[in-house]
């Protein structure tokens, strides 16, 4: 390989003050990536992006990861970005390559993850002619990107690349797509990297809050008796974790987390209540419903955390801090809306916030928590078990709890979407920001494995676990090959229940147990992984978890896989049915309730021995459904 890389040429010329070098569009793309601090590009080649792939050979500093599907590339870029806050980069060809990126782009958009996608496009002269592999990718991605560009001349390329990264990472971060026609990649032009600060007249992310708004918030905090902080993804994205803890401590306010807010504060912190929402802690949801003040920080009142909006936290005043003005008063009307960078705004609040004794409020929350603990099904293996735990069965929730224990709570976990995702959220207690990576807003099955690969590549020093369902894993399992080819040391834990478990749960509750299209005939995941040369273990009993996890952790190169064969028909409790009031939760029965239900069921079975007929079956099923509701 020649030493005379294009970068050397570019920097040499710049250093000697001579005229700028002449580069191709493709080389300019690479130069810009380097200057943005990019070290890894996830992608897949094809005709319209080939000039850029060829240019990449001159830039060994840009490591290209060949995925097995472009969806994998966009999820990997996303996982890479979420693990560090750096911009992730995905690259694909025109047409089908570009459309395959779409799910990953939409996922990144919903969770405000900074990625830049570079797509090849047919030559400018052919645009609009339905040329081979032409697709209007800027049109397709219009509603799912923060911004996108179709580059029509090489002169604008450096500027566009710079803007793309700037827009992706600043303000409320998000995906930006740059579509580059093939002829623009081939053309040559003098490369001048703009050095003046980027000024976009229509784009200026806010920073500090106005004094009047801060006064208003302080006044509400001062008057409140039952305040609660709702901490979202914005806290970690703004790096405002310390300020959050300080505010909570100084004013003695408990904190509830959104799914993506996990990691905003250590879940071991005495003021941290845990996750809110559809599968959040019952005590957390009760606290929100009875609060007299919500302080929402970097969260967006998604329907999965509010339940029925009409009855949501009815007796509370509300403060909402977000960097995106359009989030204020979008779903929930607030008393004080503050637009600004969370770190700055929290520092403004911290200066003057007063300490509040909230003993009665904490006692109330402690009561709810005691009730929740009674119903808890996942207990240390040597503790007395809840009677609802089936003898000798392995529960998905247990797997997560034990994984938490045996990894010391220190791993970065990346989940897929479904029941296993909610168990992760409930039983893996995170301490650090960016240590849980999950598709919250879009709920994208297939996200887990590729995002974990991206996360591990951006944080090679960290232990990374992909916790995936047997359904979602099969959506992107082709990326096993990528992990092997790149020797990415990601530990894969399949929570294998033989079902599209979360959908089955809805069918159980709301569709009278008609399990249509949710049972799956799965491949032997161990044999499958072994075909890729991946070491595997199958776990069927709780006693085997520790050894399997330790064996995985002992592997320090390449991926590992554990197939956790778990109870098929487990339920994620508590559950707020979609659209129900937030405190109207389906709960797991307490041990006493459970025993009573068992007795009642046994008695009922004795009285009606002829329950075989078709007519009597339906009411029996409904009765069973009722008992599972814990009512």
């Amino acid at each position: 390989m020649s030493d005379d890389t294009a970068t050397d040429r570019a920097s040499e010329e710049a250093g000697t003050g001579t005229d700028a070098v002449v580069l191709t569009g493709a080389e300019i793309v690479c130069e810009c990536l380097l200057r943005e601090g990019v070290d890894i590009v996830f992608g897949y080649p094809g005709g319209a992006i080939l000039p850029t792939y060829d240019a990449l050979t001159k830039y060994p500093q840009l490591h290209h990861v060949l995925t097995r599907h472009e969806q994998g590339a966009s999820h990997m870029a996303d996982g890479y970005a979420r693990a560090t806050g750096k911009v992730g980069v995905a690259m694909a060809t025109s047409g089908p390559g570009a459309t395959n990126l779409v799910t990953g782009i939409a996922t990144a958009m919903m969770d405000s993850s900074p990625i830049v996608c570079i797509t090849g496009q047919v030559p400018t002269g052919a645009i609009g002619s339905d040329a081979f592999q032409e697709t209007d990718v800027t049109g397709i991605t219009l509603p799912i990107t923060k911004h996108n560009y179709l580059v029509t001349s090489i002169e604008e390329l450096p500027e566009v690349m710079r803007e793309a990264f700037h827009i992706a990472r600043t303000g409320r971060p998000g995906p930006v797509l740059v579509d580059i026609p093939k002829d623009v990649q081939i053309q040559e032009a003098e490369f001048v990297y703009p050095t003046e600060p980027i000024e976009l007249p229509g784009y200026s992310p806010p920073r500090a809050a106005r004094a009047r708004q801060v006064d208003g918030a302080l006044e509400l905090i001062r008057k409140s008796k039952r305040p609660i902080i709702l901490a979202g993804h914005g806290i970690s994205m703004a790096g405002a974790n310390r300020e959050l803890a300080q505010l909570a401590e100084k004013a003695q306010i408990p904190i509830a987390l959104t799914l993506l807010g996990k990691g905003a504060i250590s879940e071991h912190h005495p003021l941290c209540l845990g996750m809110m929402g559809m599968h959040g802690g019952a005590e957390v949801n009760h606290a929100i419903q009875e609060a007299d003040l919500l302080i929402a920080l970097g969260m967006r009142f998604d329907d999965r955390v509010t339940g029925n909006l009409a009855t949501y936290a009815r007796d509370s005043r509300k403060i909402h801090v977000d960097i995106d003005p359009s989030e204020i008063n979008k779903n929930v009307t607030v008393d004080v809306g503050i637009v600004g960078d969370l770190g700055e705004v929290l520092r403004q609040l911290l200066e003057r916030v007063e300490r509040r004794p909230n003993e009665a409020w904490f006692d109330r929350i402690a009561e709810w928590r005691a009730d929740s603990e009674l119903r808890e099904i996942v207990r240390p293996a040597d503790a007395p078990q809840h009677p609802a735990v089936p003898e000798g069965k392995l529960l998905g929730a247990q797997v997560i709890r034990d994984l938490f224990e045996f990894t010391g709570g220190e791993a970065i976990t990346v989940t897929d979407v479904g029941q296993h995702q909610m168990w992760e959220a409930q039983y893996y207690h995170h301490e650090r920001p960016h240590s849980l990576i999950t598709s919250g807003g879009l709920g994208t099955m297939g996200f887990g494995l590729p995002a974990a690969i991206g996360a591990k590549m951006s944080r090679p020093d960290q232990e990374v676990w992909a916790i995936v369902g047997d359904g979602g894993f099969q959506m992107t399992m082709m990326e096993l090959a990528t992990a092997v080819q790149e020797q990415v040391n990601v530990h894969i834990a399949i929570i294998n229940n033989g079902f599209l478990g979360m959908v089955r749960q809805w069918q159980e509750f709301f569709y009278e147990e008609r399990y249509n299209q949710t049972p799956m005939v799965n491949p032997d995941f161990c044999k499958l992984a072994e075909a890729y040369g991946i070491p595997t273990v199958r776990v069927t009993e709780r006693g085997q978890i520790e050894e399997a996890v330790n064996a995985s952790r002992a592997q320090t190169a390449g991926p590992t896989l554990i197939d956790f064969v778990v109870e098929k028909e487990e339920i994620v409790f508590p559950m707020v049915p979609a659209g129900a009031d937030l405190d109207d939760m389906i709960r797991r029965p307490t041990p006493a309730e459970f025993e009573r239900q068992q007795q009642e069921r046994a008695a009922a079975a004795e009285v009606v021995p002829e329950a075989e007929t078709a007519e009597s079956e339906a009411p029996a099923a409904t009765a069973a459904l009722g008992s599972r509701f814990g009512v």
Partner: protein
Amino acid sequence: MAKHILAALVENRPGVLARVANLFRRRSFNIDSLSVGRTQRDEMSRMTIVMESDSAEADRLVKNLYKLVDVVHVDHLHSQPSVVREMALVKVRASSENRREVIQLCDIFRARIIDVSAESLVVEITGEEEKLENFTELVRPFGIVEMVRTGMIALGRGGHTLKDEGFKPNRSRAAARRNVL
């Protein structure tokens, strides 16, 4: 519910209109009219958006417009003293018997007749929405063959202008500036 008139200065980049139109569709904003045209500056176009809504909805639209990178400034002209105009071209059926009557109406409304044929007249009328509506109601009995309206355009009165100071067009990007379509 009230009529809200928003004026937006947008950068003259390809696709801006699509972005704005997509926003209306994507977030289900119900738009009465939208008109787009050049301004005193080559690099910027001005959109006038009219919507029938409550003020929270109008507020939401303003915030969402600002999220678009190409939107430089948005103003709620409803809350400012402003002048509002719309133009319509109306082809009215007019035979030799009733032509005089139609012409009289046009005079009252200060509408101009810009084309005459044996069976019809084309009338150009400019004014506020109400005036246009009154006029069309009055000529409707004669028979409106065809009609087109521009949608409203509006400017703040006196010193009230949309902020474009600080707007520096990007030199290397100038080549890419065509029109908002």
